[in-house]
């Protein structure tokens, strides 16, 4: 039982981290230009810093 009390919050914490990561990608505008991102990897002199 003790192990459950430790593991359950731990797994929820992992889930929260993933949720936080998703929120961060959303805020950083990573879904704004899927077509452009697919093309940019083909360019040689591209900097991949978003504006």
């Amino acid at each position, binding site marked *: 039982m003790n192990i*459950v*009390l430790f593991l*359950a919050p731990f797994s929820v914490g992992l889930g929260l981290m993933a*949720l936080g990561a998703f*929120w961060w990608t959303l805020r950083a505008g990573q879904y*704004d*230009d*899927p*077509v452009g991102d697919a*093309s940019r990897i083909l360019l040689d002199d591209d900097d991949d810093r978003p504006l």
Partner: protein
Amino acid sequence: MTYPAAPAPDYSAFLRKREDGARSLDLLVKGARCANCLAKIEREVQGLPGVASARLNLTTGKLTVGFDGAAGDAAKVVEALDKLGYPATPYDPAQAQVAHDKEGRRLILALAVAGFGAMNTMMFSVPLWAGIFGQELGPATRTVMQWFAAAVGGPCAIYAGLPFFQSAWNSLKRRRANMDVPISVGVILTLLISFSETLLHGRDTYFDAAVSLLFLLLIGRWLDHQLRAKARGAAGDLLAMQAPAATRLDAQGREHRAPLSEVAVGDLLVVRPGERIPVDGVIETGATDLDNALLTGETTPAAATAGNAVRAGALNLSGVITLKAAARSEDSAVAAIARLVEAGAQSKSKYVQLADKAAGLYVPVVHLAAALTFAGGWALGLGPREALLRAVAVLIITCPCALGLAVPAVQITASARLFRKGVLVKSGAALERLAEVDHVVFDKTGVLTEGRPQLIEADEVALLRAAPLARASRHPLAKALAAEAGIGVVAAEAKEHAGLGVEGLIDGRPARLGRAAFVGAETEGDGETELWFAEEGHAPVRFRFSDTLRPDAVQAVAALKARGLTVEILSGDLATPVARVAETVGVRVWRAGLSPFEKAEALEAMAAKGRKALMVGDGLNDAAALAKAHAAMAPGTALEASQNAADLVFSGEGLMAVVEAIDTARQARTRALENFGLAALYNVVAAPAAMFGLVNPFVAAIAMSGSSLLVTLNALRMGGRK
């Protein structure tokens, strides 16, 4: 013939100031499709003096340019892009709110939270469900698990449910009940009862059901939002691009670009060939031909000289004119049409969608069932707690998620399929209206025809004689003639007389090409589009033109008739060409010479007779009719006003897109009704089961997701990779 160069357009109004004092500019770039375009455009713009950064968004076609310091030359950027072959227009980011899609972000974040919540709450619910299979947890462990589920599911449900709670509250404030009311009541009651069960060490908690319900519903909500955002984006881009400006003359005769809103009655304006007339007015000096096709549907350019009244929206073809503004821009004929469009859009918003009709039936029935269960259970001696549990079970199990997904899922697959075929659907309601259509009204110019004149009968010898003169002219009829004759010499000393024709020397002899009076011929006055040619010592020759039909016009009309629709043509053009087109495509009912207002009236009359008409039109003269029609389509070549008034916009050359759209809409309707059938069937089985207490949290979870999956899979049958 040369024209004085136009002053460079002034785009300074579009420059935005950034926090660090630097300027930036947003442009809409047309034609960028691939990695190469992207590299070319960014490299070119970054190489311009004063440009610090340039980044192109390929998905939306928007280019953001940042300038060094406060100065920024927007005109140079546009010019550079034009040279590369990508026409660009600056737009005002304040008008295009699409880039910052706040609503969409909130929905996707709520969806993410609900997804996380559903998964992690389930994790703690699995041990609770295990009791069904005879592996009952001890009461202490059960309570611990319930507390875990509550800690994760409660906050997630509250956050993810906010969009529904707000919408339900707004609808209740207006004394109505939309689909969000039973959802909100269900979710809130479920949470409350689950918390009380947890506190009282009871057995039935539904945290997992509440969160998964929201998760499934948010999928439908987000799909619906995406569909509308895409369409709004297309329309918003068009609006943001309209940067209306006119060239005004001041007292010293100098030219200034001024926003259209500042043009006052009595101002002198200069309009060059290729520009549209900005406001209604009277020509002061100069003479030209005007293309009224978008205003009236007439294909033949009309001559206009000093003293003639001209209307906003007409395209100036051949000469520089100055005109005295007779009306402000908002009082021009165009604005009157825009107001008609507005009124049409308002009457359309009264249309009740399928989903709302279903909600109207569903809401009272479900709430009544839940109330009866509570009252009945109490009366039959279950005790208030047990009775309330069963009532909540009814609310959960008759979950509206199948209903909430039924329509959006179908509409998104239908519009994705149409999008692949080059048809943009602006809203789900548009698809539903299109499915009900029983009558199709076509505009002629630019819809059934391509809107470009083509030579129909010509004497081969005369054609070759006249070609050198035709090549010297910018008039559309002369251009069509030159195109027919192919490449060759240009007449010497060619001089264009605006509104009359062109004269010059062919083999050293003077010749003229233009209106009958200009070459000294007698016109037959049969309303045909014509051009006359005369050389010294020869009788004048007549060239006849007509507007070419779209290649699949005949096929499309036949296909529409085969589907049991009646077809009619309403045109602003003269009777002769309209009759010829009607005969060719096989339409018996047609009317010609209609004003924009008469067109709109004709559609109102149809609606009054109970006919549900689809209007297909492209011109400004169709905009009001498009707004008044039950459903409306416009080609991608149409004026912005018409595209905005239409429900669907089809790109490309083919009219078969109209047939395709009607087919898809009808199929979508069938699928949506099937989905309602499935959802209803499920509820008929599930609701009694909940009333008799046969439902525990595990069954609720299975039944709910099962019904949602079923309607989604059924909707995906729409996709068809035909």
